[in-house]
């Protein structure tokens, strides 16, 4: 705003971020405003790069599993599961069936708590803090059950290469069922409070629209894509863990509302309905879960020795609460992987901000930004620091750099 005669000309520029009370994580937005209306939106992530992949290259996969727990504070099991699946494919490990079911149960509990956390956050962004407190109170039931099953509320540490570290014992079943019944009884109330509320309808209906074509073009994933009517879910499209045996149908907003508009309201609907769906999946898992081992190999030194025989590369995918996460791992007969790449679900979803935000009001920025459930510290994989100069890397340049890196790795 320093050039010419400031503040007198339209369009003017409003920067929001990198740190801003309306944003829960650092990201830099630049809006070109015409009055209250956004004419053009742009954003720059990359403010929370932590170098987790770099740390991973110096550790063996058993250690990395605990590192992946910490990529995201909410998706505690999603990254671990995707990573473990990648390593298991390289090593051709058959995960015991019971472990697959336990993985699915924990992943679904995680989805419940993550969606409720998001719903509370959405209410908070609307200025509806009463609802935030109610939602986060009911979320505690899922957190307590996760704590009972895994030992801790966050950073569960349940996944091991080739299985899970803790079994679900029969004496835990009543507590799990109590939690599931709680959410079954609560579902009607949650839907009523969120979807029939006049304030939420006024703020969220037809706000931040992402059309189905845009959702497909920008490769959005997870609830953001489903809310725009894209029928996709990694659990259904490419089943893994126990999901192949279970009856799951991707949740689309027209199932509840009869139409798909792709707005913020639809994203609330999809996430709230998925809470119920996840509870149903856990019920199915508990009913059909077979008895047996939970680990491919119980002796950890033997797993470590097996890493030294592993050659190859693989991609592990998982439908995290926010969408598909993808881990690429390459092992070359050493204890630590040669390459490890993480693609968090928000990475695919961030670009959908642009069509959502353009044409909207400035006051709707917080809820639209929050509506894709962005997780920026999971997403940030690269920070280029070179003499303080700023430049934009094009797709061609990034492609050239990745080809160079692959050649370097293959040498």
């Amino acid at each position: 705003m320093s050039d010419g005669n400031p503040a007198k000309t339209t369009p003017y520029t409003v920067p929001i971020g990198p740190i801003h009370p309306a944003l829960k994580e650092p990201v830099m937005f630049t809006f070109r405003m015409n009055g209250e209306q956004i004419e053009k939106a742009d954003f720059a992530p990359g403010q929370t790069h932590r170098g987790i992949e770099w740390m991973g290259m110096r550790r063996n996969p058993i250690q990395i599993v605990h590192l992946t727990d910490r990529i995201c504070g909410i998706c505690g099991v999603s990254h671990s599961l995707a990573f473990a699946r990648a390593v298991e494919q390289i090593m051709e490990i058959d995960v015991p069936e019971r472990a697959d079911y336990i993985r699915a149960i924990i992943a679904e509990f995680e989805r419940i708590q993550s969606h409720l956390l998001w719903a509370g956050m959405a209410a908070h962004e609307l200025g509806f803090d009463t609802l935030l407190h109610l939602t986060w109170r009911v979320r505690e039931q899922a957190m307590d059950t996760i704590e009972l099953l895994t030992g801790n509320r966050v950073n569960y540490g349940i996944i091991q290469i080739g299985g899970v570290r803790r079994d679900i014992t029969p004496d835990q079943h009543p507590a799990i069922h109590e939690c599931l019944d709680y959410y079954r009884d609560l579902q009607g109330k949650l839907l009523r409070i969120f979807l029939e509320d006049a304030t939420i309808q006024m703020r969220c209906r037809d706000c931040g629209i992402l059309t189905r074509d845009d959702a497909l073009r920008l490769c959005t994933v997870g609830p953001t894509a489903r809310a725009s009517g894209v029928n996709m879910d990694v659990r259904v499209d490419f089943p893994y863990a126990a999901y192949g045996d279970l009856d799951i149908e991707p949740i689309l907003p027209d199932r509840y509302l009869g139409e798909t508009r792709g707005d913020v309201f639809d994203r609330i609907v999809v996430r709230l309905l998925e809470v119920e769906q996840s509870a149903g999946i856990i019920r199915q898992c508990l009913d059909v879960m077979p008895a047996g081992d939970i680990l491919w190999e119980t002796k950890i030194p033997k797993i470590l020795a097996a890493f030294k025989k592993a050659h190859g590369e693989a991609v592990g995918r998982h439908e995290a609460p926010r969408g598909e996460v993808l881990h690429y791992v390459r092992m070359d007969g050493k204890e630590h992987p040669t390459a490890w790449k993480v693609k968090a679900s928000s990475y695919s979803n961030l670009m959908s901000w642009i069509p959502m935000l353009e044409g909207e009001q400035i006051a709707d920025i917080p809820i639209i930004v929050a509506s894709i459930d962005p997780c920026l510290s999971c997403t940030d994989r690269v920070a280029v620091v070179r003499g303080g100069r700023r430049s934009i890397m094009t797709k061609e340049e990034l492609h050239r750099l990745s080809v160079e890196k692959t050649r370097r790795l293959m040498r």
Partner: protein
Amino acid sequence: MLECGDAMANLPMIPELLKQLFRQPATNTFPAKYLPPSVTGFLKMVSRGEAAIHPPVATPPEFRGKITYEPEGCIGCSLCVKICPAHAIELVNETKTIRIYVSQCIFCSQCTDMCPKGSLKMSDEFLLADEDRYSDNLIVE
């Protein structure tokens, strides 16, 4: 947009709010039942035995808290040093025992799974805040 008669129907949170007035708060008041003028002052009084702490929510049976170590059974194999993802454990060469820096520990319990002698356990202690990351409370050996 809102009609007065329909206000309750369109604001379903209001009956919920009114009900909440007669419910117990969901939050456990910790460490004191009512907010003391100074929390650090209150904790000092607790350490002197002049006040009682309001108990925290109980931890689950398999909780992973501060690590405990029994040097007697330890054979100094250093498998735990090798497996620790946070590099929080070091081998003390003179005594062939280990030293664990709790401030660096990530409570994954991988070393307790790995230990061939069962010398390492996770306790249920979780109040580990300290001003000094190398204080006696945060180094286990």
